[in-house]
């Protein structure tokens, strides 16, 4: 799907997200693919905080705020209602889509998501991953990478930021034997758009994990969001893959990684890292890719 085939309408407009917000770019792009008959469910998080400031309501389609833990459960209900409504009205192109942050997916909402996948509900769950609880002021989440400085994992003389690696959410979801799961980044928006489009045509639960840099929390200039989102995939600290019919597949397999050190050094949240810390990160990246390339083909 290219730019001219996209819906010209805007469904997420006039919102109060910070300038250069990666999450709002992901929401906007996904809704342009899904169209006006998509009902968006947003748990507590940046996108609900910036989209619904009564009377400033920035969604052009139907959208609702759910409980923090209940994005996937509310999607189940929305989809059941939509299915009945659409049958009565005689149309089929409806979507129940959820936009949860990394905390709302990997920490707080994981059991509801797991339940929805288990029930096989026909929903699309999009996790926009900005790697911390950015809305409340940058606290560590389960998807914060190793070494990142947040307000709950400060960088000091002894402990250099977060000591735990990023939770492997994509493979956790895929392990449910989900019909379709994918990873993406807002830096390669065409790839993300294609994955959303592909997911919208599949029946059953779909999950897309999209990296969405946060200039405020990552300590990068607001104009660098897209550049950094590209770099994370280019330097191998993120991978673009799909899981479908029980098989993993890399959608982008870089022949040669760009410098992970350059990617880390340009961000304020990794500024404190020593050369050994960076060597640890690069080492774990290489081990991960070795496994990915061997097992996923």
């Amino acid at each position, binding site marked *: 799907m290219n730019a001219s085939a996209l819906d010209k309408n805007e469904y997420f407009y*006039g919102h109060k997200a910070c*300038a250069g917000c990666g999450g709002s770019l992901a929401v906007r792009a996904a809704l342009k693919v899904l169209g006006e008959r998509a009902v968006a469910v947003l748990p507590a998080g940046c996108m609900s905080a910036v989209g619904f400031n009564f009377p400033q309501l920035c969604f052009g389609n139907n959208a609702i705020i759910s409980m923090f833990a209940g994005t996937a459960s509310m999607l189940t209900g929305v989809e059941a209602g939509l299915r009945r409504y659409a049958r009565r009205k005689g149309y089929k192109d409806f979507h129940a889509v959820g936009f949860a942050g990394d905390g709302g997916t990997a920490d707080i909402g994981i059991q509801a998501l797991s339940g929805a996948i288990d029930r096989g509900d026909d929903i699309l769950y999009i996790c926009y991953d900005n790697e911390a609880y950015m809305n409340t002021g940058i606290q560590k989440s389960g998807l914060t990478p190793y070494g990142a400085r947040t307000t709950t994992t400060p960088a000091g003389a002894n402990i250099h930021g977060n000591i735990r690696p990023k939770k492997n959410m994509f493979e956790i979801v895929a392990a449910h034997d989900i019909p379709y799961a994918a990873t993406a980044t807002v830096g390669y928006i065409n790839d993300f758009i294609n994955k959303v489009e592909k997911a919208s045509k599949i029946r059953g639960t779909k999950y897309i994990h999209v990296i969405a840099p946060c200039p405020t929390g990552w300590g990068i200039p607001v*104009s660098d969001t897209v550049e950094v989102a590209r770099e994370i995939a280019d330097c191998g600290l993120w991978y673009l893959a799909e899981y479908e019919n029980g098989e993993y597949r890399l959608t982008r397999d870089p022949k040669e990684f760009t410098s992970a050190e350059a990617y880390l050094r340009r961000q304020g949240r990794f500024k404190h890292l020593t050369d050994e810390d960076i060597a640890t990160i690069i080492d774990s990246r290489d081990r991960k890719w070795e496994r990915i390339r061997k097992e996923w083909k």
Partner: protein
Amino acid sequence: MKPYIREKSTFTFDEIPEDTCFEAGYLVTVNAGWRSVTPYVDTEKCIGCSQCYLYCPDGVISMEGKTPVLDYDFCKGCGICSKICPRHAIEMR
């Protein structure tokens, strides 16, 4: 079609809907005041590749044929369009 500015922008307490439902796409304020630099498109250099339109987080760029048109009411001046442009046709000033 996109969410647009409405005339009625203030609500008294009694007018606030009780059932927490309200019209979608109801805007009352603009974001223009957030901006410290403003993007300007050089139409001579522009090749109409739509990259700025695709990557704008606020969706303020729309393509009219091959020309990007900016809605300065909602542009926050982040400068992503300027960085992404392959011909450097968008200048921030």
